[in-house]
Structure formats: C-alpha cells, structure tokens
C-alpha cells in the first residue's frame, strides 16, 4: 500500500521547498510526516517545533501526531491559530 501523499503547504513553508505549493512525501502518520519534512526541508523544522496544524480530509489536528494519514487523504499544513 502506497502512503505517498501530496502535502499542501501554506505560504510560510513554501520557501523551504523551493517555492512549491505542495510536495510529495511518503508517511504513515503525522509524526513520520514531520520527521521527514524536517529531514528533507530543514528550514521547516523551526515551524514544526513552534507548532503546525495538519488538516486531514478537512479535520484539523494540532497535537495528535500518532494520527494516521489515510491513502488518498487531502492533507494541508496550516499555522496553529490562537484563540481568544
């Protein structure tokens, strides 16, 4: 089973991927995704440490890094939004 995903990047992350709007990464969980992003695009690591939200098929995860990335899922990386 292929777990290669298209990961859509928000603007702040794109410079670290050569300006790409999205990149292809093979990962089974959010944790693995973040680890591979840090390895492949080291400039993203400080953002990941500060906090990145992951939208998987429209549901936004902020903290549950063990969450699986289903095949063919729509995945967006987004900034962690604060609240009032």
């Amino acid at each position, binding site marked *: 089973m292929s777990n290669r995903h298209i990961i859509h990047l*928000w*603007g*702040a992350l794109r*410079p670290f991927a050569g300006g790409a709007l999205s990149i292809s990464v093979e990962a089974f969980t959010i944790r693995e995704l973040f680890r591979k992003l840090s390895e492949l695009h080291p400039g993203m690591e400080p953002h990941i440490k500060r906090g990145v939200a992951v939208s998987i098929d*429209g*549901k936004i995860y902020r903290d549950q890094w063990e969450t699986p990335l289903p095949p063919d899922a729509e995945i967006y990386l987004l900034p962690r939004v604060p*609240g009032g």
Partner: protein
Amino acid sequence: MSVDSMNPDLVNKKFKIIGTRPPRPDGIDKVTGRARYGADFTMPGQLIGLVLRSPHAHALIEKIDTSKAEKLLGVKAVITSKDLPDLTGGDRGMFDILENCMARKKALYDGHAIAAVAAVDAATARKALKLIDVKYKVLPHVTDVDEALKPDSPVIHSHVFTEGIEPAPTKPSNWNKRAEYGHGDVDAGFREADVVISRSYKTEQTHQGYIEPHSVSASVSPDGMAEMWVCTQGHFVYRNQCATLLGLDANKLRVTASEIGGGFGGKTHVWAEPLALALSRKANRPVKLTMTRDEVFRCTGPTSSTSVDVKIGAKKDGTITAAYAELRYQGGAFPSNWAEFGAMTSWACYDLKNVKSVSKDAIVNRPKCAAYRAPSAPAAAFAIESTVDEVAKAIGMDPIDFRIKNAAKEGTKSSYGPVYGPIGIGPTLEAAKNHPHMKAPLGKNMGRGMACGFWFNFGGQTCVDVNITPDGNVNVAQGTIDVGGARAAIAMAVAEELGVAYENVRSVVADTSSLGHNDMTDGSRGTFSSSMAAVFAARNAITVLRNRAAKIWEIPVDEVEWKDGAAHAKGTHHGNRTPLSLKEIAAQAGNTGGPMAGHAEITADGAGVSFATHIADVETDPETGRSLVKRYTVIQDAGKALHPSYVEGQYQGGAAQGIGWALNEEYVYGKDGRLQNAGFLDYRIPVCSDLPFIDTQILEIANPHHPYGVRGVGETSIVPPLAALAIAVSNATGVRQTHLPMSPPRVLKSLKSK
C-alpha cells in the same frame, strides 16, 4: 486514552440533563461578592508591587538609577531587566514575551514596563517609583499600520526581516511577515465578472475591555518553592511560561486561578506575573501586583488596528467569479501573525473558484497585541462582508440570497485550503432569511444590515478527574478555566453519564499541582474539550463502579451494567438482584478497593469550524451622527448546546463586544505616540442602556468529533457584528461606512462627503 478508542461517534444518547438550564454554580458567589477574583487574595507579610512604565512611544534606555528608591524606608525590592536575565534558550517568541514584560535596551511603546518595586504599602511603592531615575533617548515612532509599512518608517527592531517574500530582504523593516492563501486564478475570474467592486477599509485598535484588571499574588520561598494566585485564562500555560522566564522548575511553581472577570483573549499572555515572581524572589516576601485601568489599556494586549483592501467580481446571476483581499494588521511592538490569521478567515464563508488573500503583518509602537475573541476575523469580515453587500446591490440581488448562492457547504474547498465537512453557514443564512427580524418594518433614519462570520475553533490538551465522595456524591476537577459556564456544562456531562442529578456533582478548577497540563481556555475550546474529557472520565468511573458492584455481589463484572445511576446485575443467574445505587457502592468503597475515581487525559482535536449570521437594525441621527442599535439577532451553530443559557450568553456577549467595536471603541494615540484615552470614560464600551435585548437562535448541527456533538461557541459571535452594523449604518445614511468605529464625528464626516 485516545479519543478514538472512546468511540465517541457511536454514542446515541437520549439526554436527560444535557440541554437543560440548571442554575450556574458560581452564580450566588458572584452576585453576593463572595467570589474571589485576582485582587481578592491576601497573604501574610504581603508587599505591594508597582511598575514604572515608559512615557515614550519609542526610546533608548540609556540609564536606570534605582539607588534612591532602594534606600527608601519600606521598599523591599526594586527590579529591572537585569533581574530577569534571558533564560529563553534562543526561543525568540519567549524572548519577546520577556521583553514585553520588562523593557531591556529600548522602550517600545507608551506604557512599556521599565522597572518595578515592592514595598510595604502602595503609598511607599508609588513614592519609590518617583525616585527611579531613567535617562531616555527618544526615538522616532510609528503607531499607524500603513505608515509602519512604508519604506521610510522608523525601524523598531533591527533583527526583523520580512518573512515570506522572495528574494529575502537585506534590510530590516517593520513588515515582519507576508503570507498568501487561496486557489484558482483571480485575474481570470475578474475578467469573467459583470461587476467588479473594490473598497478599502480601516478599523481602529480595540481592547477586550474585561472589567477585572490583571492581578497576581506571588510568593517565592528561598528553597525555590513558589506559589502564584492569578486571574488568567490558562494557569498551566502561565506556570510554564513563568517557570521558563524565571528559571524555576515547573513542578515547584504552583498556580491557582482566581475567578475571572472577563478575559476574551486578553488573559492568555503573561504581563505582570513574571515581575511579581521576580519581586517576591528578591524581597523574600509575598508580592501582590494589581494593574490600574490605565495600565490595562496602555500595556496589556489590545487587538490589531487594520487596513484592508477588498475586490470582488460577480456575474449578474449572482455567482462570485473572483475574490481578492490584502490585509494589513499591526501586532504592536513585536512580530506577529494577526494579518495572516485574518487572511485565513477572510473568505471562509464562501464557495469560491478563484480567491486570494495576501497578509502583511506590521510592527508599530503600541502594546503587544493579544488575541481578542476569534482574533483577526472580525476586521476581515467587516471588509469582506461590506463588499459582498455592495456587490449584491450592484447586481440587483438581495444580499442574503447572494450569500446563500455563494455560501460554502460540505465539500467546498475552503479559501484557506482544506475541504469542508458538515458545516453550518448555509443553515444560518436560511434561518436568517426566514427570521421575523428580516421582515420587520424599519423607521425613519433606520437601516438594516446582515453579515456572516467564521471561526476555526480548536481543542487541545485537557485533563478531568471525576472523584466519588464517600457519601456517593461526585467531585470533578477540571483544568480549563471557566470563562463562560464550563463548570456547569462539565458537571452536567458527568451527571448525564453517571445517571445522577446535576445537584450531586460539583466541578472546580484545580490548581496546577493537582492535574496534568491543560491548555489555555481559548479558541472556544473550554467547554468543547473539557466536556469531552469529562464524558470519558465519567465512563472510566463507571467501569470502576461496575467492578465494585461486582465485588459486593460476588459476581463477574461483565454481568454488571450501569444505568440510571445504579449498578444492575444482568443475566439469568443474577438479574433479580436489587440494583446498587452510587451511594450504596460508595458506602462500601473502603472494603472493595478504596477510593473510586475516573480520569481522562486527552488531546481534543476535531473541534469543528463554526459559522454565524447576524442581523442588525440601527437608527442613525443625521444631525449628531450617533447610531443606536434598535434590534439585533444572532443565529449560530452550536453543534449541541449543553446548557442553552450559557450558549445564548456567549452569543449575546460576543455581539455586544462587536457592537462596541463597530460604534464607539478605539485607541486614540496622540502625535507623541502616547495613548490619549486609557480609561472607560474616554474609551466607551457599550453598557446595558446602549443595547437592545440581543435575540438568539441556536442551531444544532452535530459535530461528529465530540461525544455529544458539541462545537465551541465562544468566539464566532464577535465576527459578524462589525460588518452587520457597518452595512446597517450605510443603509441608514446612504453612505458606505468604511472606517470603524462609526463614532458620531466619523459618521458626520462621512455624511458631509455625501
């Protein structure tokens, strides 16, 4: 325990307690004065702390001489930034918090803390402040967001280079970040349009306006043990931040939260707390530090002032073909992301083929901005919704039908990226269209406006303990601050699960030494996440109760079920036993295994986005420019209203704050960069006599990621009012209102330009 393992989506309960309106547990204390707010704590040997603040908007601090103050009889400690060394380990965000709490080389805004004293009484502390000699070199300043972004603006931080632009800049500036969201081809979309309308908008800076000023009492012992009693939206986060800034172990700093007299995002940041701890550590005495109203305005987090350009293209059939916005927000004297969040929310209500939002975050010589209820969304919605209204009129379409035609729905690709699941914007619009308010006649000089709003909502780290008392009642310890009724809602959830009366359950906010970490009460997460944890903790308690009943009956636990507040034996062998009530099981706890409890520690993701539609009727006096709100209706999706009265209160509170933002409230800075109206006499929030009864309609479109279907409700209700009122005043006056607040002088000026 993971949320998914609790299988929340399969719960299909018929509620007995959820959805009812029991009395609030803090009600009597609050109306009789028993409730203890931040300033109500007093400790033996307590000193009074006061802060010396910069009178300049931007200045180098050349020298601070505290020697005279230190010699004053009754002064026990004087601190400057030297007493708060940088322990942040390269974390720029934490360093900004440190620098905001106490200026280091420069004063960055009027009111920036320069030094602090602790003395035996307030009079001595005030005298000591006057004895501190500070030599400043005044620097050029900038307080306006658009001015700050100009190339010739005085640069506030030499280390800030704009993020998000290519090529990377080689010179520092006040433009700390650019971001972009959207999809499609907006240029092509505008070419398809029959009508294109562009407008520019401004909003002035507002404060959350909570009635209770910040107050903290801190006590640091020589052995490194510390305690802090504080008014906050997140005592665990305050603990963690203060421990980092002061070099304390988090477990040695015990923080107890007081009742909270309003926060709305303004009590999510530490301000005076590290100073109180540093003073206490230096004086070796407890220190109480309570801000004045002047200080609250000058140095705690207001929201951004903004400048927004919007362009919308539409076909005559009502289809929006392209939407563009550039949003410029100032975040105060430190780098921020507020404009970016505005860009994310700006077009979220709509299903758009071609959409683009560009954000520019700016640094100015104003206090560091804090979140304010759905932060950044209201100003964006003001600009977008006002233009949506104008486009609808330009093509001759009813604005509500225009919105319904273009509303986002399940499956829509949101303007900030993801595809929506089940959402409530369409139903709120339909409810607005069918609401009697929309059909009510308007009088002379009156106008009606309606607008939509969006907010993300989120969950986060949350703990709840459910403890069964020996007499068979229930104590709940929660870690999220109760800002809007969470204690009642959580007690209701536990009562619902256990099958006991609400009156038998008491929920309290536990201190930081009593529970695991809990995130801040923000992002409309308090009730959403804590009620989820409470349900799971109660279910775990039920497992314990079934085990204890099995022991009492001497039967296998899988032959015991829990229903209606009692253990029931089942099966042919034991089914005829009389059920054991919670009280009967509790009475035998000592010899069935000891204390009985249920716990839950969760990360409550899956909050579900939130939408609202508001309707406002306004009467504007053409001679004075004064606008009065005559009728107001809030329609919002709550997922499931645990306690409908609290939900209505959240809707009404957000609307009231939005009305103040739209009509009156603004920070007024002089040419010297100093705040001119740091008090409630000159910064006018709406009072009861300014407002009609705010009508509410709760929609319940269940959130599939909460065991009861709950969505957060605390923030979205502040998003639409700015636009709804601006459209209403525009309709009342015949002049499009593009600058908030619509104070009488500003409205009169607009009428003269008619």
